[in-house]
């Protein structure tokens, strides 16, 4: 069974078609790029897969369950169980330390608190020394890695990353891509990256190209 299965997904906003008849599948542990320029519907598709929007037609199945058929609480629960998201805006809970964010992610996902897992993740992302720092003290690069750590702390089955390398130079983009792939591989996480950054094609072979409708 595919972990993620999109069948003929279409979505409109107002009078504009954002996505039309889009289909692809991802097995557990698979990696895929959603590649397209700005306005091609990448972030919208991430939000559809996360259950924040519902498609106008077609279906999105997560671990065999059609997201759109579920009421909001069940959709939220499905997301909580299976999906982690790295937002383009690098969201973290501002009042908590980095470690606090990771602990909260585990708790909200209904996972037992696993300090060792958090330490391992922070070490892998080079953030061990920043574990108890206030978020405002993190550099842009550290914040980017912190957002990845936050999304991975709950060990999601499916990790959605929206433009994770958009603001980075080549070296750092390469580093973040490798980091995502290595961490996903180490945890068996299925990885879907939405990006306009063609540099990532060097790392991920499966690509779904999106174009503005």
């Amino acid at each position, binding site marked *: 069974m595919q972990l993620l299965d999109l069948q003929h997904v279409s979505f409109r906003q107002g009078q504009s078609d954002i996505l039309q008849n889009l289909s692809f599948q991802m097995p557990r542990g698979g990696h895929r790029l959603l590649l397209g320029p700005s306005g091609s519907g990448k972030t919208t598709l991430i939000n559809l897969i996360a259950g924040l929007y519902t498609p106008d037609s077609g279906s999105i199945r997560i671990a065999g369950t059609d997201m759109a058929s579920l009421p909001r609480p069940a959709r*939220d629960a499905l997301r909580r169980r299976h999906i982690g998201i790295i*937002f383009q805006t690098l*969201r973290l*809970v501002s*009042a908590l330390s980095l470690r606090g964010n990771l602990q909260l992610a585990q708790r*909200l996902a209904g996972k037992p608190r696993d300090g060792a897992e958090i330490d391992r993740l922070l070490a892998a992302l080079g953030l061990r020394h920043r574990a108890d720092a206030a978020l405002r003290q993190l550099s842009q690069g550290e914040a980017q890695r912190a957002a990845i750590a936050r999304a991975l702390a709950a060990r999601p089955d499916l990790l959605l990353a929206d433009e994770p390398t958009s603001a980075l130079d080549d070296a750092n983009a390469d580093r973040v891509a490798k980091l995502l792939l290595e961490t996903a591989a180490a945890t068996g996480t299925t990885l879907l990256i939405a990006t306009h950054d063609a540099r990532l094609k060097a790392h991920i072979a499966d690509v779904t190209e999106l174009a503005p409708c």
Partner: protein
Amino acid sequence: MLSLALAYLRERGLVTILNILLLALAVAMLIVLLLFSSQAADRFARDSQGIDLVVGAKGSPLQLILSSVYHVDTATGNIPLQSLDLLRKDPGVARAIPLALGDNFRGFRIVGTNPAFVAVHGAKLAEGRMFAAPAEAVLGADVARQTGAGLGQRFAGSHGLADDESQAHAATPFTVVGILAPTGTVTDRLILTSVASVWAVHGIAPHPDEAEHAGHSHEQSAVLDPRGSPQPEITAILVTYRNAMAAIRLPAAINRETALQAASPAIETARLLGLFGAALDGARLFAWMLAAIGGLSIFVVLLSAARAREGDMALLQVMGATRAQVMGVVLLEGLLVAAAGALAGLAIGHLLIALARASFPTLAAIGLQPWVLHPGEAAILAAVLAIGVLAALIPAARVFNTDLARTLSRGS
């Protein structure tokens, strides 16, 4: 969620502390007013129990009650000893207790009276016996505790109502023969002796028939008899009616037909509490307004925080928090600020009462107790907690209007 709410409060620490302080001030003020008004009313009621009428020298009826029943003011003057005889012979009078005031020991008033005074206040001896012979004294419980005096000890009273050793009657000391058990009434702070003893201290010969209950107040000059020696006088008489008719007839008759004044403790106390009551009501209104401002301040802070934190709130939901949980975080913030303000206010309120009691002897004299809890305090705390939750309700409800995807795609 509690730890998250606490983290948000810590994040804006100064504003949180200011909000807590604002509520604490309001609660402290309400606590002080509640304790003061309830304890004063209770104490006035207890102290005047069994006393229907006070007869004394002409002057302010309130002053007569304050000096003779509550022992917090100076007497209006002295009255002839014969007044006591006349009252005792009246068929409407069940009991007439003489009072001879004017001296003190270390600020505690020495009251010349008879053992019926002890009975009317429901006091009982904890140690020793009742005064009988001249120069014997029985101490109230607070007097014994605060002066450390015990049975058999001798002390000299001082002239007047303030502690002033230069005015001491060193030549005529009293001997402690009894100590009363605590009563929660004015008796706890009095030194009781016979009227004749008070006379003796001031060199006044006892009246041949009324040696037991004649007296003299130093606040007034003693009346001289034709040979130049002071006449025995008393300060006031505490009267208990025998029947309801006496309540109608006696005060009017005394005030109209004699040179004395009759005042009812119930009426004067009600008048006093009425005067206080208006001021207390004003202060209470002000305190509730302060609490409302505290609530408004919490509302403004939380609303602005909820706007600034829309991204956090959306992220929490995407991470798996239910909307109820996210709302709960904001509500908890309001509740925690209100609870901290309420508890701080409770402590400050009682501390203020303790400080006021230590600073103003009159408050100690009326028996204001700082470390007792009043049931009304629970209502004040509940109301302040409700203010905190209500103030957080609208900011918390914003969670229902948040478009998660749109919010999360905006810059943080």
